[in-house]
């Protein structure tokens, strides 16, 4: 359901959902506070195995919404970190909608969870506005971020893959200096990284393979004509002849 720009590589393998999670989501047990621990384990599983399941994570946040005393802060931040990797999809904001209304206001909720949520929201804003260089700068400038993403295996690699995907969608040629800032990679690292995707680093430009998105071909939609549209005419032609 995430609105990522299509590509041939899926950065996060969308494994099929485990059966026991499917059963809970399909029935009324999704409201049962006892399933909180099942969902929490599943978030842990997603973090370790680089999978992602938006509907299950939203169901967990809803259980927290209904039963605030069950809230586990590190699970909330893990869910948000996972959602962050789905940019530019709406996942992160869908999670925010289910958190307590006072969480984004620094004057009202100064506790650690709110602080972490606001920090992650800031990262999300940078990602959504395609400020990738600033994203990496912010991310590296504050040690708290390293703690927040610690559970989420391969976070930096995933983000790099996602940013590369967006780059591939807008450009067929881009200055090396720009793209190395976007991916937070030095020149040599960039060469190695780009090779996998078929990118060619040629001096100060990187050439990217053509795909449906970066071709920007002018297309003309022609109308499709079906025989059925002419049914009436043909029918009448027969009737008149008779």
């Amino acid at each position, binding site marked *: 359901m995430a609105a990522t*720009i299509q590509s041939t590589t899926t950065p996060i393998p969308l494994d099929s959902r485990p059966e026991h999670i499917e059963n809970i989501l399909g029935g009324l047990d999704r409201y049962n506070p006892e399933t909180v621990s099942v969902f929490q384990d599943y978030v842990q599983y997603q973090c370790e195995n680089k999978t992602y399941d938006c509907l299950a994570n939203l169901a967990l946040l809803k259980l927290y919404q*209904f039963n605030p005393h069950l809230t586990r802060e590190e699970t909330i931040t893990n869910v948000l970190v996972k959602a962050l990797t789905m940019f530019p999809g*709406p996942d992160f*904001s869908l999670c925010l*909608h289910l958190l307590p209304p*006072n969480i984004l206001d620094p004057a009202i909720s100064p506790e650690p969870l709110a602080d972490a949520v606001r920090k992650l929201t800031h990262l999300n804003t940078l990602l959504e506005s*395609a400020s990738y260089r600033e994203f990496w700068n912010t991310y590296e400038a504050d040690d708290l971020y390293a703690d927040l993403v610690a559970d989420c295996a391969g976070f930096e690699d995933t983000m790099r893959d996602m940013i590369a995907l967006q780059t591939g969608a807008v*450009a067929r040629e881009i200055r090396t200096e720009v793209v190395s800032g976007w991916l937070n990679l030095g020149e040599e690292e960039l060469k190695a990284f780009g090779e996998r995707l078929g990118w060619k680093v040629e001096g100060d430009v990187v050439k990217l393979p053509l795909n449906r998105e970066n071709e920007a071909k002018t297309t003309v*939609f022609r109308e499709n004509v079906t025989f059925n549209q002419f049914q009436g005419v043909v029918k009448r032609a027969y009737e008149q002849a008779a």
Partner: protein
Amino acid sequence: MSFSQVNGGPRPPHDDDSDDEVLASTLVEAIHGNDEEDDYEGETGSISGFQPSGDDIQQRLSAAAQPLEFQAGLPERFASYDKYCGLFAYLLNSEGPVDLEIPTYHWAWEVIDEFIYQFNTFCSYRHRVARKGGNEEEVQILKENPQTWGCYSVLNVLYSLIQRSQMNEQLAAIKKGEDPDEVAGEYGSRPLYRMLGYFSIIGLLRVHCLLGDFTLALKTLDDIELNKKAVFAKVMAAHFTTYYYVGFSYMMMRRYADAIRTFSHILVYVSRTKNYQKNNAQFDAVTKKNDQMYALIAMCVALCPVRLDDTIHASLREKYGDQFTKMQRGGPEAIPIFEELFMQACPKFISPNPPDFENPENNVDPAQHHLQVFMYDVKNTIFTPVLKSYLKLYTTMDLNKLASFVETDAETLRKQLVVYKQKNRQVRWTEGGLLEGELTQTADLDFALQGDIVHVSEAKVGRKLVDWYLRNLQKSFA
């Protein structure tokens, strides 16, 4: 205990050890305990047992559909909650289905509608009391009764009505072209349960949306096909409400193209049937929601420009012409307009839990929270109209030159172009459940970067000849 086993009656939100019997008996107690409070709403029959006489239940049924007075205070709201609990417990927990004819055609919708409306206003009321501090006595009552109008109770009623009537199974059968009566069971084959079950699904859509769970809201309608033939279309207010909440949920999921399609559908329908509806009692409520939907569609079109139906476009200009132009123009001046229209047109969001009575400032209005999250996307997209107006004029363009036109630097412009591209791709519904969809391009202008050169491309629509050809053929036959 799983939630699914509880039928009828409220469930204490934090009490995991309760079981059905405890729940049922607390419910009976709650009902008995409130006997004396019945007086101030006039006598509508004593709520004292599960086997009232026929006349009595008829009265209670029609009372349940009656709107609560706008000025109602806490005691009235508590009493009304108990009455609903009593009524639903009677319908769901009697031995076998209750043998009743629906009092009026719209009755089932009105009961569910009023039930959720009162839940909604109760939560807002409680929130207001907590925020203002004010009335000590009211604070005390609210603190002591956290379960009254709790979201678990409300959801429980709606889910129980759906389950009792086997509504999801019935709808699935209808979809497959089978006879719904075969799966309806003892309860679901009766009009009373069937209608209550059906409208409870619409009720769930609404409750989820009010709680900010827009994904689940749309998922709830998986078994209902949205079209004019759907059952809800027979009750104008239900038809209208469904489309409002579906459209709004799409908007919050940033699927603006789908939101526009949803709002357009119902707004066209209303404008065409306006003359038939004028004498209808529901029409006033419809008019207000109608204006709200015009505000919402204006926001969506500003965020995702598409061609609107001519009649809608004309009414939109009439109602929100000034704001619409400003939003379409984009830029920082448009932000307050988006905020204003959102607050005007959004549902009355609720926080599911009792507020923090000790720290009034802690109780942020949920609408403000949802607005803030929604505005992230608006603020991120607000520059696109200007950018687009320049892209339209060129086929190739130097990045630095374009940057000077839009009064920014090359780096910022590059970001804006990436965002433009991303916003230009949206998941759009084609078939199946409301959450399904395919990624499509929404605007006709697209671009690609080659170093610092912007290549602009356009998706043009070719001439449409078939219609013209057919029309002229018809003429020549005549």
